């Protein structure tokens, strides 16, 4: 894992940089593999259990493998009243998986999130951090189609 070494090298000297390093790992692998957790724990001189405790504290970080595109659905109150449940239903049906799962082709993962700060365009999802708002079932299908196209 050369990429991992590059991340370790980049962040090791940054005070308090462990969480930044976790972000970098996740940008690369879509989650934090055990190997990365071990290497970072060592580099930052914290016990593995502590590193695990930190990674698992933050909902943006995942210790479970995920798909290439992580779709997060906002379930906070403003999105909830504006039909987040409908968006969940469409996504689950279209991808034939349930919330929390990853499609068998490893393309999509569905997760809940709390507010992503795009609350004038409710309901909202993000795909790899990119927000999409004012969603309807039709719009969700269009967006998925874009991501399904081989790039």
């Amino acid at each position, binding site marked *: 894992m050369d990429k991992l070494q590059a991340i370790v090298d980049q962040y090791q000297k940054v005070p308090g940089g*462990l969480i*930044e390093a976790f*972000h970098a790992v996740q940008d690369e692998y879509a989650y934090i593999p055990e190997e990365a957790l071990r290497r970072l724990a060592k580099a930052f001189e914290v016990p593995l259990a502590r590193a695990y405790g930190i990674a698992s*504290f*933050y*909902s*943006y970080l995942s210790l479970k493998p995920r798909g290439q595109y992580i779709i997060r659905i906002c379930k906070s109150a403003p999105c909830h009243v504006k039909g987040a449940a409908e968006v969940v239903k469409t996504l689950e049906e279209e991808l034939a998986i349930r919330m929390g799962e990853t499609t068998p082709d490893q393309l999509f993962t569905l997760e809940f999130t*709390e507010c992503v700060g795009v609350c*004038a365009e409710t309901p909202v999802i993000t795909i790899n951090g990119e927000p999409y708002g004012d969603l309807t079932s039709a719009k969700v299908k269009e967006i998925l189609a874009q991501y399904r196209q081989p790039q």
Partner: protein
Amino acid sequence: MREEKRISLKHYGLIDPDQIEDYLEHGGYQSLQKALSQPPAAIVQAVKDAGLRGRGGAGFKAGIKWGFTLQTPAEQKYIICNADEGEPGTFKDRLIMEGDPHLVLEGMAIAGYAVGASKGYIYCRGEYPYIVKRLKRAIEQAREKGLLGTNRFESNFSFDVEVRMGAGAYICGEETALIESLEGKRGEPRSKPPFPGVAGLWGKPTVVNNVETLAAVPWIIEHGATAYQQIGASRYPGTKIFTLTGDVARKGFCEVPTDVTLRELVYDFGGGVAGGKKLQAVQVGGTSGAFLPESLLDTPADLDSMAAVGGTLGSGAVLVVDETRDLVDLAVTIASFFKHESCGKCTPCREGTFQLHRLLEKISRGQGSRQDLETLERLMWIMTQASFCGLGHTAPTPILTMLQYFPDPFNNRVNSQAG
């Protein structure tokens, strides 16, 4: 009809946020230059005189906070810009950073000069990766112009800024949890005192201010404390950005003097309730804010007026709820938020938020009893009294105010059940 007054959003949509030249042409970094020609204590005094209070929710006087840090001798001090913005329904800090990143950097640099800090951190929530990029670009440009980093303005003051990304934990908006997170740890709050102003990041004196607070500072330096003090409510002067969400005709935002009323926000700026429906409630301050009825809409939205009616100003998020919405269902959603976001450090909040959610869900399903409602109220009282930090103290606010102002939906749901 109320008019907007833009201070923190003064350049929003008017300049290219990715071009420092544009900011400079609009008078950018002039306030910093002006500040550097005065002694630091004079800057702290100006912020005090302006009456600027924190826009992150607690409303602490910024000048007083800066004064503590100025007076605490230390080789290293820090400025932290709190850009965690986790309160659902809130996106004001995003607007500021998106539209005018240099304004935030300038505010931080002025704060740094005033208290004697040479290093600043922006703790930006992980949900805003596109903002993090923009901020980093702005910092690069400011360094190239010699405005940040070493040797600036031929003065011997130097100030640099680093951006750190949060990772999806609401509690990290609380200033001491934020500091823990910046240090690379779990974001669990510390006990106060000591306050960050005296012992914060890596034990050093640290000013933590919200984005919107810092974004008001250049204006105050440019126009003077008196000019700022005269805007809006006298005890909470200046402007505030409100974000309008939910069942409002025009979702969006406005920056207005702080004596604006809730009615003006919902009807003048928001265009009233969407679809010609009737208003049921407004929740002011974000998900930890109070639910208020139509009869309180003429209350000014400033911090003290809101507190006087048992409400909150909080982040300035205004959620409009129309007559068709099921408040019990909304209560379950809100309780689920706090259950998820409780950091787990203290029992009243860890267990309290869990039980709150469980009981409300039970009531929502029509399986709750009168006894459950009573347990709920007792539980919430304990949480407000015994929790370790603000999350546990305020998590009950939305539910308590729902029960106070809108008891019927809850009573009806439990009355259908014997026992």
